[in-house]
């Protein structure tokens, strides 16, 4: 129990003293002051964090082997080592060698610098391909913003840490910085591409990076500046009347907590519903709700599959932009992509 409350204390000491008088259902009188003292010491001088490779039990070879096994991928050992080698580590090594007086051997093509842009390209191509396939109705601007989110430093470093690469990376910074994790993730993708081919790499990207948008509201990732104007543009493309806003309900008007509910209608058919504290805001919300329903990303429509096997060699065409968006062209595009994948 106490181990959980104060996890960083000297565990054995705590375990020893908390158990010693268990049969009397009480602790020693010194136990509470002891804990306080230990806590105080820890705040004044926290114990240093050491890299895992400074421990006695550390076998880099074995760790690399189980790294590949953990992900269920076959890595080429040399390539994997190269992908985990950062330029900063080599520089530090060279400096140390100079200091000692050893001749510095040229270390070109040993670090992962050349792998990063190539890995990034593979990642970007497949991410766009997959997103365009699963969200064929979503405009290209939205697809790009989802891709930016997936390829951001935040997401990639998170993935890289949680597949257990942070301790294996050879770099100078410790604790490992996010930028390092980010670049290593890209290098790892390239290493996998070189060792097992594009097909396996695309499945890897799907399983570890694309799944990061699960449980996420993708409408939050793309902010539509002016939803009313956007909806009007789409209606003009479709050759239908402009949507007519109507107040569907209100509550607490003339109070500080006023609430309006606006519905948008085309030919007496409801296409969007939104509520807000003023009529203008409610109108905007209704427009963005209508857009969501059109793009197939409303809450009840969104069910992203993460088990598709797509051919990564296909060059994906960009989705329709907001300005050209209309139902007819979208259907044409969906037919095209279906025929390409067959």
């Amino acid at each position, binding site marked *: 129990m106490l181990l959980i409350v104060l996890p960083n204390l000297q*565990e054995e000491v705590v375990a020893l003293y908390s158990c010693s008088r268990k049969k009397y259902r009480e602790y020693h009188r010194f136990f509470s002051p002891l804990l306080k003292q230990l806590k105080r010491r820890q705040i004044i001088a926290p114990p240093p964090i050491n890299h895992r490779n400074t421990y006695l039990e550390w076998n880099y070879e074995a760790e690399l082997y189980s790294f590949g096994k953990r992900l269920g991928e076959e890595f080429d050992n040399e390539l994997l080592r190269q992908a985990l080698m950062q330029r900063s580590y080599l520089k530090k090594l060279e400096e140390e060698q100079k200091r000692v007086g050893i001749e510095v051997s040229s270390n070109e093509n040993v670090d992962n610098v050349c792998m990063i842009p190539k890995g990034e390209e593979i990642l970007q191509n497949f991410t766009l391909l997959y997103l365009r396939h699963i969200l064929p109705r979503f405009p290209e601007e939205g697809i790009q913003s989802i891709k930016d989110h997936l390829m951001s430093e935040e997401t990639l470093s998170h993935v890289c840490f949680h597949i*257990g690469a942070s301790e294996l990376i050879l770099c100078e910074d410790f604790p490992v910085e996010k930028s390092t994790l980010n670049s290593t993730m890209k290098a790892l993708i390239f290493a996998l591409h070189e060792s097992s081919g594009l097909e396996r790499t695309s499945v890897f990207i799907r399983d570890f990076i694309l799944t990061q948008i699960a449980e996420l509201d993708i409408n939050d990732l793309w902010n539509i500046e002016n939803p009313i104007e956007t909806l009007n543009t789409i209606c003009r493309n479709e050759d239908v009347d402009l949507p007519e806003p109507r*107040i569907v*309900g209100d509550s607490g008007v003339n109070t500080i907590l006023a609430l309006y509910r606006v519905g948008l209608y085309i030919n007496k058919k409801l296409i969007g519903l939104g509520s807000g504290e003023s009529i203008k805001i409610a109108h905007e919300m209704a427009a963005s709700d209508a857009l969501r329903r059109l793009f197939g990303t409303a809450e009840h429509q969104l069910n992203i599959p993460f088990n598709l096997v797509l051919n990564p060699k296909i060059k994906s065409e960009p989705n329709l932009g907001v300005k050209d968006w209309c139902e007819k062209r979208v259907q044409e595009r969906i037919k095209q992509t279906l025929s390409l994948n067959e």
Partner: protein
Amino acid sequence: MSNKCLLIPSGFPRLPLKNGIGRVVCQLKRITIKFCKSSGSSQGVRNFIELDLLDFTNNNPEVVIYLKPRRHHSPVVISEYLNGERHYMNFHNFTRDNTNKWLNFLRTRVGIKTIRFRKLQHTELPSIQGVWSPFTNKSPELNITSFPNEKFLQPKHLPESATERLRKMFERQKLKESEEMKMNNKSIEVQQ
């Protein structure tokens, strides 16, 4: 729930890295087994190492196992997880079977700290039909009614009163009688 639980931090079951949506990754990355080569408390762990360890490593190549013989110490297992947590467990006087079972338990753990679950499930999408609002399931008729209105003044579900029931019974009776009268008239006509 015992009193102890009050001190345990609480939370919801969460999986790191959306594990299982894509592919399942074993969250245990390495195990360090410290044991004594001679003392009796390590007997079970030693038996495990002699007889079962190779099977364990063959079945779980994703886990790195380190053995550290330490003289005259209780056997201890330290497991490290992908989310950076370390879990420390004493294996004092464990039999070979116990060791097997507990190692399997450590292997299948997610690696989050021990917490009291507030619920046994968690979702980011609590409702697929939308969040409740004051307008949910309201009749649109309300928008164009002016109040006070006789119809909406009544309670929604008023039970039938005794008078009303009597009235209905009386009407039914009248209907029945009139039908009988008609039938009689018809039969008279046919006879004639």
